[in-house]
């Protein structure tokens, strides 16, 4: 079977839009939990709305991914690296679900109302301190894992793009 050289257009667009969205969510999150500044509340409101949009986006992205033909890594990439690449991808999909879901659930467990553009969202949990603790810790630690994964993933992508020049980097950039 002939595999395509590049990711389909829809996937490339989703990849870069989500990269920008998730990076800003991470930096917004890490800054706002420390700051006492007057903009902190605005950032938090924005973080929740954009975080929920990220949840919708990852669902759409997974659907597109499952329905499209994606390129395989070139044979020149060693087996261990092939495996590492698969695990990184799996890790991204997992964490991109865990982040917004834990955010949503921790707001439920804290008894705080949630809405998206004025539309009230249902609470899936009862108010409970230990449950809040669980989802708040997941949100905090999964975020750090995600940062780590992004660093590893970007280094690998740049390595392919700048050093090996084997078309792997290109497959997410161009047709």
């Amino acid at each position, binding site marked *: 079977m002939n595999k395509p050289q590049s990711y389909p257009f829809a996937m490339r667009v989703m990849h870069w839009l989500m990269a920008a969205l998730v990076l800003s969510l991470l*930096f917004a999150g*890490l*800054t*706002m*939990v*420390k*700051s*006492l*500044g*007057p903009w*902190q*509340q605005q950032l938090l409101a924005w973080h929740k709305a954009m975080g929920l949009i990220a949840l919708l986006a990852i669902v759409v992205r997974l659907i597109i991914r499952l329905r499209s033909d994606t390129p395989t890594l070139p044979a020149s990439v060693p087996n261990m690296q092939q495996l590492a690449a698969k695990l990184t991808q799996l890790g991204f999909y997992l964490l991109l679900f865990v982040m917004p879901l834990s955010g949503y659930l921790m707001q439920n*467990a*804290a*008894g*705080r*109302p949630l*809405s998206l553009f004025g539309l*009230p969202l249902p*609470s899936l949990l009862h*108010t*409970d*301190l*230990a449950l*809040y*603790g*669980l989802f*708040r*810790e997941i949100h*905090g630690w999964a975020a750090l894992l995600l*940062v780590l994964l*992004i*660093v590893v993933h*970007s*280094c690998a992508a*740049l*390595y392919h793009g*700048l*050093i090996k020049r084997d078309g792997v980097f290109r497959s997410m950039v161009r047709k």
Partner: protein
Amino acid sequence: MRYVLFTAAAGAVVAAAVYAVTVSGRAPVSAQDFVNLQQGDTIQMGFRRAHANGFCISGEFQASGELAAYSSAKALQPGSYPFIGRMSIAGNNPTAPDLRAPVRSLALTILPDTADQWRTAMNTPPVMAVATPEKFYQQLLAIQSNTVPQFFADHPETAHFLEWRSHYQPSQSYATERYHSINAFYLVDRQGKRQAVRWAALPLTDDAGVIADEEAPDALQQEFFNRLQQGPVRFDVQFTLATANDDPADATIPWPETNPQLSAGTIVIEQASVQQEGACNALNFDPLVLPAGFAPSADPILRARAAAYAESHRRRAREVLMQQFAGGANE
């Protein structure tokens, strides 16, 4: 050449991430700094880092509707709405003697579990000693290093607070204190028109109460629980409207008594329970959890409170979670 380029690029990614994280951590005073300072050297696992000694209450808010013209909030339309609340004393020690605390508090979540919920945490002083989180942090440092008189001398804005303190007489009961929002908020009507306000819960009883043991850590709690056996405890929720002369962003200055005052309704406290068993324990009485019809003022203390309460909430929730894990493992 390629290797140099690659190393530089990878280095830049890592450096950018580290830089972003550490720079945000070097902000003047962070929520974590505040909570570290407030919790002190002995961590009271699972308890609030401030106002640790307290208990849960619940009952009904009977809204008069007098403020309905100023706000679209459901809690201000005529009607009867459930609330979950908490009474507490300031301080990080859950077993500190009730009667020694300089500040007493009443916190409320009216219409819990709904999008209309209104959270408020009120204290006995009507004003803050200082107007910004940074100065409040300095005040806490001064308390720890026993240099409060110097701190007050260096900060003339503390004058109104000191004036209040000079004639404040703590009562023998939580039921007979006055609790103030201190910070100002806006009421917002259906047309979007805003009116700056402060509010206070004023006691509706003149029964002074009897304290059995003055040194008991829960002297006030006992008194309150006994009092509830005789029937509900009531407070009038009184709103004061700002005039053009008042600055809603500065909580150190009292508003004139000639300002318009309206009664939003009556808090009827029907039940009380120790905090670990009550619904209030899971709640963070973040003053910025406001329904439509309310908006925060520009007071910087309000933002600092929201951030510090969230950090305290995170810590105690984590501890309770760990305790449950440990408890589960032991069974």
